[in-house]
């Protein structure tokens, strides 16, 4: 009997499998497909203070072993999430959920996080300082250590109950420096990586496919980059990491944990195989057994320890 339990800042999960923000909505669509209570948790759609329509379409382009998106943080706003999405979620999901919060000013991050801190359904707050698809917000906070630290510090000053994890951008020269700055500013953990900035050009129109020109690259193609970044950051900080980026199999989950992740998010793969998370959860015990792993907690950072 293998042990798949992991603990994020005192919050014990049945397994480390967490659908990533932006690929799982607020849970309702997937609950029509399978019982989402099998998940460790999930990270809900990036939420801002005000409702946002997002970018014009096309917002999606395909790549070899991956995809680009430039959705632009479409979401119904924090009040709608508090009064409609969370109550609806309560009926279909009996575990705690991760609140993914984005913003365009430090004040906006602070206000959204303060509201989430009061919700008993929230397990931890994931502060997204790394959305590449909006201008003047999102990634602007995550690409330099000082700004990332400023958001972290401001949020930590108001959030009293929930752990605060900062979601990092890979679109930086030195992700370790940003990670250290967040840890020093009081972050309880880190999520990495968000999507890589990329683009495609249509040979028919000779113009970018995405209306936003550029978008976030995700899918199996980015897995080695994500793994490398988790491996580097894990050795530089003393707070737990949630690893993500191109994870699509149970084997990928084990690699990500060996690199130093305590839990693992699955993103783009949910969009092409809606059953990927339950499939991985079902396969984990036998894949662990195959590689002589009896407890997931024991392998965290095993690649460098």
């Amino acid at each position, binding site marked *: 009997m293998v042990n798949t339990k992991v603990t994020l800042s005192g919050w014990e999960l049945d397994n480390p499998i967490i659908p990533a923000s932006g*690929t799982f909505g607020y849970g309702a*669509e997937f609950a029509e497909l399978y019982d989402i209570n099998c998940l460790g948790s999930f990270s809900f759609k990036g939420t801002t203070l005000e409702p946002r329509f997002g970018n014009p*379409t096309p917002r999606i*382009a395909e790549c070899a072993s991956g*995809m680009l998106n430039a959705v632009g943080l479409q979401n119904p706003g924090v009040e709608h999430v508090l009064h409609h999405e969370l109550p609806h979620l309560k009926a279909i999901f009996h575990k705690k959920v991760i609140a993914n919060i984005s913003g365009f000013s430090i004040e906006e991050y602070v206000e959204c996080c303060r509201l989430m801190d009061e919700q008993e359904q929230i397990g931890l707050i994931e502060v997204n300082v790394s959305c590449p698809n909006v201008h003047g917000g999102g990634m602007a906070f995550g690409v330099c250590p000082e700004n990332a630290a400023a958001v972290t510090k401001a949020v930590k000053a108001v959030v009293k109950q929930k752990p605060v994890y900062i979601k990092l951008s890979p679109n930086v020269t030195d992700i370790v420096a940003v990670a250290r700055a967040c840890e020093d500013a009081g972050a309880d953990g880190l999520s990495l990586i968000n999507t890589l900035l990329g683009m495609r050009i249509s040979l028919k129109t000779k113009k970018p496919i995405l209306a936003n020109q550029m978008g976030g690259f995700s899918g199996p193609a980015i897995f080695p980059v994500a793994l490398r970044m988790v491996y580097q950051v894990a050795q530089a900080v003393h707070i737990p990491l949630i690893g993500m980026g191109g994870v699509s199999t149970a084997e990928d989950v084990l690699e990500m944990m060996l690199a130093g992740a305590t839990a693992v998010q699955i993103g783009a793969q949910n*969009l092409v195989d*809606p059953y990927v998370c339950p499939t991985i959860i079902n396969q984990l015990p036998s894949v662990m057994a195959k590689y002589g792993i009896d407890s997931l907690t024991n392998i965290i950072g095993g690649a460098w320890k």
Partner: protein
Amino acid sequence: MEFQVTENLLIAPRVYHMRLTGDTRKLTSPGQFVQIALPGYYLRRPISVCDWRPGENGTLDLIYKAVGHGTEDMGELKPGTVLDLLTGLGNGFDLNQRDEVTRSQFPLLIGGGVGAPPMYALCKHLLAGLKAPHVILGFNTAEEVFWKREFEALGAPVTITTADGSMGVKGFVTNGMAALRGKYDYVYACGPEPMLHAVYDEAAGIPGQYSFEERMACGFGVCMGCSCKTKYGSKRICKAGPVLFREEILW
């Protein structure tokens, strides 16, 4: 859900008719679509349903155009190939929820190019519901026309329009509509957006449903890739669409 290809025939330049067998029980309404996983491609390909026979061992008819590498490769698939499909996606045409729909006696069905296929199952359903539909199918040239006989065999009158006049009425579907003014009380349309807009203008004052197309990733409502603005707020083409009621379209 696994489906097996039983036929995959070229029926017009770059246009294929694929028949598959598999569990079609999730399909509930004409105008819905399926998402097909193709070997070698990361994203699924959304294809509208032309017709289906319901059941655990049902059949599914798709007519699609090779518009890029993925659909070109799809055209090469041989009978016997097993494909993974997500089915029953999208709302499809609403045939019985609204008074204006149930009251209508003379619906006009308009399909442009590969917007024509969903009109096939829709026409069957309307005939079974004792309506008197008229079908207009628009193409660029006579060579590109497909399934004229299949539509005619359903028993509804069919008008073909071609942009170059090589078959039927010369011009666009709206030229076909002009001859029918006053003879229809409802509109169902599927095709490229400029066509939908022209139909919308020609059918001013007449209620209807319009099926839209957008680039999408998931096809089941979570990625927000295909959102559009409507009179009643933003909607996901894959989930709350692809069919929108006339009065919610912002034109």
